[in-house]
């Protein structure tokens, strides 16, 4: 199959490249240092309908198809992994509400997320339940006014900024999903700082201490809640992370090609040294391979093909590992400059490690890919 972009996709891709070059690349290192995105970039993404572009227009998106969304994720990932992560999380929350909530629930919350009026957060992981998120210990109990939530969530992206949280808990022994809005009594967030990478993803720990939400905030309850809301959202996020990792790797490759052309040692540009060429060749070929896997996953997702989920897992597994290797090599090729603040490759290296962990560690994905293939 030839994964050639249509003229429209080429045009869209060019606009994403320009968006990343104009608005993300110049600011990404500062956001990383400050461990926070600027409010203005979040507003800009909302106004540009890029926060959840795959939503219908009336729901706050722009009706973007899934293959074009992949191209967007690649360019956001090249410019700033945190912005790419923000866009992924908004999509995970908004699409879960749109697909599995009632019309009233979707009408109430989804457009607010799509337009950036309110940021959403996906609250699944707990301090003691990461890869085994199905067995989280957060509880919900019925009460006269609705439900009372007790427990903690941890490592929640944009938990510092979000106004709407999609929260998973156990209700009557089965998984359930609720919307909890910031400001609800008994709910508080605490920032997590000092992360290795994706430092501007504004992570937070959430505490629910007798937090009461009304009946209208219950999105889903029953055994399939985890299998569809949680797992389905992670599948959406994995597609974004896969493409974002390709973008990160491409950013590392471009930086390395420029640096090795300009940097002279032993009287020649360092790209003329064979060992450097070997590293560049590995980067070039692995970036191309990972991108093709993403394109394949995108093409299958566009057709709702039954193998789309497995191919997305494969794309994320390969692309996130490619991203880390490319960033590692890029830092190495930059020598001492690679570990300093003047070049973006050290940020990419730190962000790349995180992308091997989020939406399923590489080891969990190895298990899942094997399980779905063998």
């Amino acid at each position, binding site marked *: 199959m030839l994964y050639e972009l249509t003229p429209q996709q080429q045009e869209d891709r060019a606009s994403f490249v320009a968006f990343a070059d104009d608005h993300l690349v110049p600011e990404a290192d500062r956001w990383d240092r400050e461990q926070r995105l600027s409010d203005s970039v979040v507003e800009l993404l909302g106004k540009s309908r890029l926060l959840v572009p795959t939503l219908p227009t009336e729901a706050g998106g722009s009706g973007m198809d899934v293959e074009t969304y992949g191209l967007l994720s690649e360019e956001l990932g090249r410019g700033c992994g945190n912005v790419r992560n923000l866009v992924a999380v908004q999509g995970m929350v908004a699409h879960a509400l749109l*697909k*599995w*909530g*009632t019309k009233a629930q979707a009408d109430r919350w989804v457009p607010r997320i799509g337009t950036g009026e309110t940021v959403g957060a996906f609250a699944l992981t707990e301090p003691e339940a990461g890869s085994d998120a199905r067995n989280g210990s957060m509880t919900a109990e019925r009460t006269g006014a609705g439900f009372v939530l007790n427990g903690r969530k941890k490592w929640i992206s944009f938990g510092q900024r979000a106004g709407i949280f999609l929260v998973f808990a156990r209700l009557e022994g089965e998984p359930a999903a609720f919307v909890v809005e910031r400001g609800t009594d008994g709910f508080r967030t605490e920032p997590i700082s000092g992360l290795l990478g994706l430092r501007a993803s504004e992570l937070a720990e959430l505490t629910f201490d007798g937090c009461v939400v009304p009946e209208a905030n219950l*999105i*889903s309850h*029953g*055994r*399939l*809640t985890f*299998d*569809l809301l949680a*797992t*389905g959202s992670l*599948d959406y996020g994995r597609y974004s992370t896969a493409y974002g990792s390709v973008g990160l790797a491409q950013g590392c490759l471009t930086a390395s090609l420029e640096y090795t052309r300009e940097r002279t040692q032993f009287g020649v540009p360092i790209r003329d040294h064979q060992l450097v060429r070997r590293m560049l060749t590995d980067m070039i070929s692995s970036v191309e391979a990972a991108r093709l896997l993403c394109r394949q996953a995108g093409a299958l997702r566009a*057709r*709702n*093909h*039954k193998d*789309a*989920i*497995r191919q997305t897992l494969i794309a994320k597994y390969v692309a996130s590992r490619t991203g880390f290797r490319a960033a590692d090599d890029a830092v190495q090729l930059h020598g001492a400059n690679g570990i300093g603040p003047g070049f973006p490759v050290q940020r990419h290296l730190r962000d790349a490690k995180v992308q091997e962990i989020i939406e399923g560690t590489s080891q969990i994905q190895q298990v*899942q890919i094997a*399980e*779905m293939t063998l």
Partner: protein
Amino acid sequence: MADNAGNKAAIREFILENISESTVRDDEDIFERGLVRSMFVMQLVLFVEQEFGVSITGEDLQFDNFRTVDRIDELVSRKLAAV
């Protein structure tokens, strides 16, 4: 429905492609038998939506709707009748 047998055969074929057993009865609880994997439900919903052109929504998420070939077929028939 006229195409009921065909629908059921397609559902059965999909399930057999995705479990470790070579046979499944139409009234057999595939979850109770422990045949399904972690991503199976998501794959099943994707299959049903693509194969039959219906949209599974929150109100369809009762576990009972997905336990057997017969139940899935009943869900598909209800969705098709409502289109």
